[in-house]
């Protein structure tokens, strides 16, 4: 469930544009106005605002935001303003340019999105970067990482509930064998996680637990320093229980000394219009503290305000 709230009586697009223009005008910026408008509009509305703003004032709204805002607040607002497909394309492109720790972002995008959402991200990637997502991922990764990431970002998974139970048995056995042999990047391991539907993988992992006693994640914790293994664990979590995955990312971002704003911004801006409510509930269950309270404690200023608005926090 989304945490984004949109007022029942939404101002007209031209009014929104006018107000935003006013927010940028003169000395300084009226950040509250920006948060108030953009923080309460859905993707369709935001797209229309961007289009209209560009036509009316001859300037790209995103460029204006770039100019007027700074630091974490700017990044959050800009990322939020993009529509989900463009946002994913933007994040994925960034991730291909960074170090291996950003491989997790690629896994997150490839595995937590629906098949069509991932497809739209790939289309947005063509339009924005004049190349395909898979060619960038392939070009910028090597070895086992490429072997795993390429199928993940190229998949167009079947999304039905049809599950083949005997296949689940066979593949659970196969996974168990490979994992016991520490063949984590084996062709078949990659094949199962890279091509099977989420429902099928879920059935396979349930069977795995029933048959072999452990959650597959436990069996994938053999070496805490193994980056590939960590990526494989993220893959599994993203595919079968994304809310738990996101809760972990948030918890680690907030608990970390100094806060990982990058991760916090990414999760809130990408999930606010989808399932941030469920993630927040999971966060509260796991940490005995509402997500919004943790955000208040850990961040400040306009960045904090925008996060809270997106997380559905009503002004007290």
């Amino acid at each position, binding site marked *: 469930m989304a945490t984004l709230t949109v007022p029942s009586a939404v101002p007209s697009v031209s009014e929104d544009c006018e107000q935003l223009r006013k927010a940028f005008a003169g000395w300084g910026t009226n950040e509250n106005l920006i948060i108030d408008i953009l923080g309460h509009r859905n993707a369709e509305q935001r797209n229309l605002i961007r289009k209209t703003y560009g036509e009316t004032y001859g300037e790209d709204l995103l460029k204006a935001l770039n100019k007027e805002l700074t630091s974490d607040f700017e990044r959050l607002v800009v990322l939020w303003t993009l529509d989900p497909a463009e946002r994913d394309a933007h994040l994925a492109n960034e991730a291909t340019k960074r170090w291996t720790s950003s491989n997790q972002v690629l896994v997150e995008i490839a595995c937590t999105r629906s098949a069509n959402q991932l*497809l739209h991200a*790939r*289309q947005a990637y*063509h339009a924005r970067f*004049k*190349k*395909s*997502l*898979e*060619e960038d991922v*392939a*070009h910028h990764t090597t070895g086992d990482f*490429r072997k795993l990431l*390429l*199928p993940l970002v*190229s*998949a*167009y*998974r*079947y*999304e*039905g509930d*049809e599950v083949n139970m005997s296949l689940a048995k066979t593949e659970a056995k196969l996974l168990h064998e490979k994992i016991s042999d520490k063949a984590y990047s084996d*062709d078949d391991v990659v*094949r199962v996680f*890279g*091509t*099977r*539907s989420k429902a099928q993988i879920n059935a396979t992992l349930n069977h795995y637990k029933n048959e072999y006693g452990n959650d597959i994640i436990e069996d994938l914790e053999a070496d805490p320093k193994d980056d590939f293994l960590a990526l494989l664990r993220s893959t599994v979590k993203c595919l079968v229980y994304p809310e738990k995955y996101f809760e972990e990312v948030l918890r680690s971002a907030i608990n970390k000394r100094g806060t990982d704003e990058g991760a916090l911004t990414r999760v809130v801006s990408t999930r606010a219009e989808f399932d941030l409510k469920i993630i927040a509930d999971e966060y509260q269950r796991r940490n005995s503290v509402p997500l919004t309270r943790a955000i208040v404690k850990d961040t400040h200023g306009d960045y904090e305000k925008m996060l809270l608005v997106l997380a559905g926090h009503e002004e007290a």
Partner: protein
Amino acid sequence: MRKGCSKLFCEDEHQFERWNHAVLTNLKAEFKRFKDVVVLSLMHPWERDARLLKKSLKKGHEQYNVIVEITCTRSSDQLLGARKAYHSLFDRSIEEDLASHIKGSERKLLVALVSAYRYEGPKVKEDNVRSEAKAFFNAIKNSDKRKVVEDDEVVRILTTRSKLHLKEVYEQYNKLSDKTIIEELEVDLLLKETVECLCTPQTYFTRVFGVALSGDANEDEKKALTRLVATQEGGEMKGVVAKFERRIEEKVKGAYKDVLVGVLAKDGK
């Protein structure tokens, strides 16, 4: 009427005009060919491609070239459409079926080919073209130690780059070597066809047409012609068609010929 068609029927000892078996077999084959090209032409291209892919997978190794043909000669959106149709028709994704039924180095190539959603715009990065032509060169040079299809870089390039980019890599390679990439890949048939379909589709179509219309084509080779005619929409095929008009006139007969000529005329002219 039967008595009049002495070629088709023979006198049987039990005093009825019996079908000449050889003629009957031929007639069935010809009608089937006609039926096939009509059915293929009428079906929605996405369903058509999904069914063709499924069939090729079932038939096994000798039909993997059909998978290459489809994944490499369709546009990005057409291939995507086939993947969607496959979900609807078979309740699985094409990539999971390919991955679980094909083994070895060919699996990597074919699964990646079917999963590609290639950029189709005009932008090409020259640096990459140069370094990737070199990568091909190195892989081919070392082909006695390792098959080219097992070279990760070659597979990466062929399965992710845009077709325009690949055509430029193909051209660039000609500056590095006397032979073309296709000439070097005579042994790696599937890889050769991949390169042909992506970089020089005209040579692929010409070859398929030529073989199908030669005197001693086998069933699969003739079927390839039907498939191309029914599934390619003008574009790269235009030039090829003109070359074969006369041979089609000579070799092909009946209703099947009418359909062929009709479909080709629509695209070719």
